[in-house]
């Protein structure tokens, strides 16, 4: 079932046929009546989970059920920043695993995910920021992850168009930099995992909304869907902003709130910004896409929402912050703005593990920053489902931490910086 390999030769061959003869990248099968594992949610994390179930654990009788289209949730709506500079050991290990997988992913999936390790800067605007950043950089380096501190001249050398003069209300006093951080093409990550999972026998079923979870004697038996009942021995919920809705179908409560996080892109301009620049203090972050558009994001709306429409208040604040950092952007026009529903945990860390219901596993709470974790999350979650116990990488991220009190507070890493 190996699909035609993408290569320079297949590109040339298909160019001769005016690109009319490319084979479909994955099938669109009818759901079968039963599966060994059903994954709910066809975003990056769900698709990666299915891929690693097949690849690492030899479990091929797997379905990914997606209510809309594949990658149409937060995976296709995010600003694609990838980095692993998290403060606590637990997070550092998980995000670094993910970054390492990303570094080999285009080759492994035979799909160009356009990973661009152009460096991610986090700005400091006051002495407290500076102290906090240097503490972080040291903790991150102790975990063997690249990270460095820049002074204002160093910041200027990396990003000449930043206003590093002392005149702004929040002047730039320095920055941390992870050079291995950067961006990737979000759709390609979803499509690459989908194609590779499909090639290993995984059924990707789109337009299939899960409406109920069947539990008998404390064990899952299957799912009610808009395309009929599907029996499953094991079920993984990977539904991001809709996690609470799905968990409630199995009688579970989660420590999650769903909020809208929005982003926007400007009209395309010539290359002007090489790195990714983030500022927690003035609440904005920006990178420039290969098309030349500036991709701009900020904080989320302060109230629960499933609307996928952000508030104008946030737009106003983030553009104000952007123009203070980059006066050169003041005359740019914005092309598009959109929102996604992010699943926010009280400690800004994800939940990846088992649930009190036998055979039901959950992967959620990635909130504003889970794109960078897509391969690592899928890898660890596949292990958890296959072995019925978490891998050491995701064991600290169990749902039980809210009862034990072992929270992993990453607000500093995730508040604005995604």
């Amino acid at each position, binding site marked *: 079932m190996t699909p035609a390999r993408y290569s320079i030769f297949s590109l040339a061959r298909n160019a001769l046929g005016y690109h009319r003869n490319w084979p479909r990248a994955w099938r669109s099968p009818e759901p079968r009546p039963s599966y060994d594992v059903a994954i709910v949610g066809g975003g990056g994390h769900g698709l990666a989970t299915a891929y690693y179930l097949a690849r690492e654990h030899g479990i091929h009788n797997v379905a990914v059920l997606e209510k809309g289209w594949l990658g149409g949730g937060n995976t296709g709506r995010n600003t694609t920043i990838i980095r692993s500079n998290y403060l606590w050991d637990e997070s550092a290990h998980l995000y670094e695993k993910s970054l390492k997988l990303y570094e080999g992913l285009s080759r492994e999936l035979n799909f160009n995910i356009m990973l661009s390790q152009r460096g991610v800067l986090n700005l400091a605007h006051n002495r407290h920021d500076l102290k906090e950043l240097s503490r972080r950089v040291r903790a991150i380096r102790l975990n063997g992850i690249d990270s460095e501190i820049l002074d204002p001249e160093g910041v200027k050398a990396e990003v000449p168009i930043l206003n590093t003069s002392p005149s702004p209300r929040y002047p730039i006093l320095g920055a941390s930099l992870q050079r291995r951080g950067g961006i990737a093409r979000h759709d390609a990550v979803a499509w690459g995992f989908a194609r590779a999972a499909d090639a290993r026998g995984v059924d990707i079923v789109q337009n299939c909304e899960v409406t109920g979870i069947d539990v008998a004697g404390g064990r899952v038996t299957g799912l009610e869907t808009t395309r009929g009942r599907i029996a499953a021995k094991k079920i993984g919920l990977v539904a991001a902003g809709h996690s609470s809705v799905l968990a409630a179908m199995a009688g579970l*409560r989660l420590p999650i709130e769903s909020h809208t996080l929005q982003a926007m892109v400007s009209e395309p301009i010539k290359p002007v910004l090489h790195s990714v620049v983030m500022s927690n203090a003035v609440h904005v972050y920006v990178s420039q896409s290969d098309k030349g558009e500036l991709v701009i994001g900020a904080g989320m709306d302060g109230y629960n929402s*499933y609307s996928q429409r952000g508030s104008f208040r946030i737009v106003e604040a983030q553009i104000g912050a952007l123009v203070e950092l980059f006066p050169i952007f003041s005359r740019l026009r914005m092309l598009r703005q959109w929102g996604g529903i992010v699943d926010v945990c009280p400690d800004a860390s994800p939940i990846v593990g088992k649930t009190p219901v036998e055979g039901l596993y959950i992967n959620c709470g990635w909130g504003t920053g889970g794109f960078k974790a897509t391969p690592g999350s899928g890898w660890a979650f596949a292990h958890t489902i296959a072995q019925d116990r978490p891998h050491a990488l995701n064991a600290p991220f169990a749902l039980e931490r809210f*009862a034990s009190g072992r929270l992993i507070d990453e607000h500093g890493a995730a508040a604005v910086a995604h």
Partner: protein
Amino acid sequence: MLLIPCPWCGERDESEFTCGGEAHIRRPPDPDALGDAEWADYLFMRANPKGALRERWCHAHGCGRWFNVERDTVTHEIATVYRMGDPPPGEDGS
């Protein structure tokens, strides 16, 4: 952008308010008797419904007072606003 009717000041722009999350979470009457799971439920677990939600808002840049709002989390439509201490609509027998 929400237009929120403060019970004291009338309709004001969203930017004057802060949201305090789910309303009517009762502090456990006998905290000493609570187990870890019950503490977790009280402190961290939230309803997070897709649809009608009762939540607390504070008119931070106005009168500074807290009040309750029933709002739809999909349409953002505000069904009703009532003061702190008032019973939720439909639960007072009326």
